[in-house]
């Protein structure tokens, strides 16, 4: 990094230059289409096809995979056919493929674009910088195939809003949409509805990335403050969108049914379809948001109680990987080279004597017996698994959790009591209480139990020297059936 003090450089100017740079690959397509030797692409509007490709990829992106390249090409070949109806379908597809490959920038090593721009720093010196960006990315899908994803830069170019806060842009889009509908400008309304849909897709994408990181290591995502705030924001977004879009849906369904010209009717019908699609997207996001908490708890259960052993060794992540990533390429090459040589093991250079080679070549291959030797039955012992905690701990736990329905206790109190009873008991209490937090009442009701132990989070943080999280309230709730309730 160059020694440029923060805030000295005109960041706003840099943003504008970069925004401009993102459109360059699209302009470039039209500039280069005449130079293609193998086909005559002059009749096609390449930048329009490029926008159609980015549209098509963005809309097909959902939670797990991206867009199938073949379907994108088929989709965009349709647009190419509209531009040049008298050309052969094979050529339409070829044009679509050419645009797609150029948007990925297949020819470059990094498969991306680089724009060089200059800025005058605070000391008055003009320096040049490189801005690397991608428009479409190829990512691996779950089935081993390659899918396309539109990058943030591409989505921003597409919706025409660069470096903006998601929320505020959303509100602006809503206002615009409402106004448009009131004035009956439907084609613009359609564009605005689509903008709203891209925002939902962006939220989904961010959520997917964070859940993936949680799956790898639950500590890698801040579930204490950052993630709940993000989920709240997403829920708020969904809520607001539901309200707005149901209102819009009502409004335009009315316009559709009362429209006087066929063209108007068709436009309104299209808009209805888009808004329905938006609602479906919100549903999808909503479902994912609801599952997020459960997934976190499952990952926590899986990861938190894995035993750790104290031992003074290297922390590969903090002491090697991160410092190496921060180094300049030249220094990193040196340091990583040392790691590579030592970590990959050894190779034995071949040293062949001619006489050995000769005898190896003339030796006939040994015949192997087809079925091999006889297999002896192994003698297996059944080993009883030992319980992870000593027997008396479980008894003490039952004693501790035998609570009076009228007197619920806090987890912190339970932990203190447990510490006095047995050194291993606190861990067992935490495991049991966490399980209680996910308690299902229906099962207890079905079995006719009189009461059920529950743990409830009222938002009080736990202050403890071993554990962290919420100070749960643990209570034995008495179960009453609805009939008893009615009688009482």
């Amino acid at each position, binding site marked *: 990094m160059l020694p440029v003090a923060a805030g000295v450089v005109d960041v706003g100017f840099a943003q504008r230059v970069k925004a401009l740079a993102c459109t360059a690959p699209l302009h470039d397509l039209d500039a280069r289409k005449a130079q293609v030797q193998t086909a005559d692409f002059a009749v096609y509007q390449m930048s329009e096809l490029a926008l159609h490709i980015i549209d098509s990829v963005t809309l097909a992106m959902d939670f797990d995979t991206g867009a199938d390249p073949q379907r994108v090409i088929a989709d965009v070949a349709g647009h190419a056919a509209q531009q040049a109806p008298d050309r052969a379908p094979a050529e339409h597809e070829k044009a679509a493929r050419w645009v797609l490959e150029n948007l990925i920038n297949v020819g470059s090593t990094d498969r991306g674009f680089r724009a060089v721009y200059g800025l005058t720093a605070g000391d008055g010196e003009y320096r040049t910088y490189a801005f690397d960006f991608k428009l479409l990315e190829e990512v691996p899908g779950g089935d081993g195939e390659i899918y396309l994803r539109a990058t943030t830069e591409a989505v921003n170019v597409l919706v025409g809003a660069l470096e903006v806060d998601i929320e505020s842009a959303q509100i602006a889009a809503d206002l615009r949409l409402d106004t448009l509908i009131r004035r009956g400008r439907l084609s613009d309304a359609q564009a605005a509805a689509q903008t709203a849909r891209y925002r939902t897709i962006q939220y989904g994408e961010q959520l997917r990335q964070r859940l993936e990181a949680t799956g790898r290591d639950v500590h890698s995502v801040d579930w204490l403050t950052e993630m709940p705030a993000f989920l709240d924001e997403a829920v708020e977004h969904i809520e607001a969108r539901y309200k707005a879009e149901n209102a819009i849906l009502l409004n335009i369904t009315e316009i559709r049914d009362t429209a006087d010209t066929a063209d108007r009717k068709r436009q309104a019908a299209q808009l209805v379809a888009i808004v329905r699609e938006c609602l479906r997207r919100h549903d999808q996001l909503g479902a994912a948001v609801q599952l997020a908490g459960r997934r976190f708890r499952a990952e926590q259960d899986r990861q938190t109680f894995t035993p750790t052993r104290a031992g003074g*060794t290297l922390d590969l*992540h903090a002491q090697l990987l991160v410092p190496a990533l921060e180094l300049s390429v030249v220094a990193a090459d040196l340091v990583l080279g040392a790691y590579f040589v030592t970590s990959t093991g*050894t190779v034995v250079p071949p040293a062949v004597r001619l006489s050995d080679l000769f005898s190896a070549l003339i030796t006939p291959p040994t015949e192997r017996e087809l079925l091999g030797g006889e297999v002896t039955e192994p003698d297996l012992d059944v080993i009883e698994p030992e319980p992870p905690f000593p027997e008396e701990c479980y008894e003490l736990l039952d004693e501790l959790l035998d609570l009076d329905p009228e007197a619920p206790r806090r987890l912190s109190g339970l932990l203190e009591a447990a510490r006095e009873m047995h050194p291993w008991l606190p861990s067992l209490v935490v495991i049991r209480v966490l399980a209680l937090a996910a308690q299902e009442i229906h099962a207890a009701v079905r079995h006719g139990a009189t009461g059920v132990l529950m743990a409830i989070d009222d938002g009080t943080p736990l202050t403890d020297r071993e554990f962290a999280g919420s100070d749960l309230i643990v209570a034995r709730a008495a179960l009453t059936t609805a009939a008893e309730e009615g009688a009482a």
Partner: protein
Amino acid sequence: MSTIETTTDAARLISYGLRPKMLPARDEEYRTLVGRARTDDDFTAAVHAVAAGLGLVVIEVTERTGIVVASTEDSPFAIRMTDYARRTSSEGKAAERVVHALAHLGAATLAYPRPADLADESYIGRISTEGVDAFVREACARLADRVDDEHTDASATEPDLDAAWRVYARRARTGSTGDGRKLSTSTIGVTSKALAFLADQGLLVRTSDDRGGTFRTTPRYRAQVREAGAVMFDELLSLGIAEISDGTGTITVGWDAATVEAL
């Protein structure tokens, strides 16, 4: 036993170390030699002396994995990056070498995410090609976030000063080529090569083809990574870059020291 016989046996034990897939449990002679190396001090000294002469370092001798040796940089047994990956030899290809080495370091880090895992002999890490790539990318993204507030684009005139994370993050994740193969210069392609190579070296064991290839670690890999980590740490120290760890894991994203302290 005469000196010559001792030396012969020492050299023989090392020759077992050069065949990493052989195990003492499956070879009587190997088992005997390992037992001797663990009990006979003179023999151990001879083993270390022969290894040093060959440019090797004996990392550990255990009954489970046998003898684990690592090569020094100028040993004839060293695997050179230029032999490992073509097109990395010339002067200007530092970025290419860095991407390959990062895939290796990323695999080790994901296999042993906490310091305790690296210290624990019985720990078995499980990694996949796509997982390793995603992991290194996440680390890059974190560094990108950290410098996001400042003006951070790399200088266009001095490519050698480009940060390593930028080089990795910029590279395509995957890609298709005209003939239906996967793009070998993409980061997933590079990672896939690294893991397959480690499996060939007897350091990883392939368990399935899911997520671009899934592998588990061997005890030998743990020993090798510890040694390589120590060597690399020395190199970092000589550059004046060193982080002191208190032994707790640091793979946290979005949690700084203060919030962890508060827990």
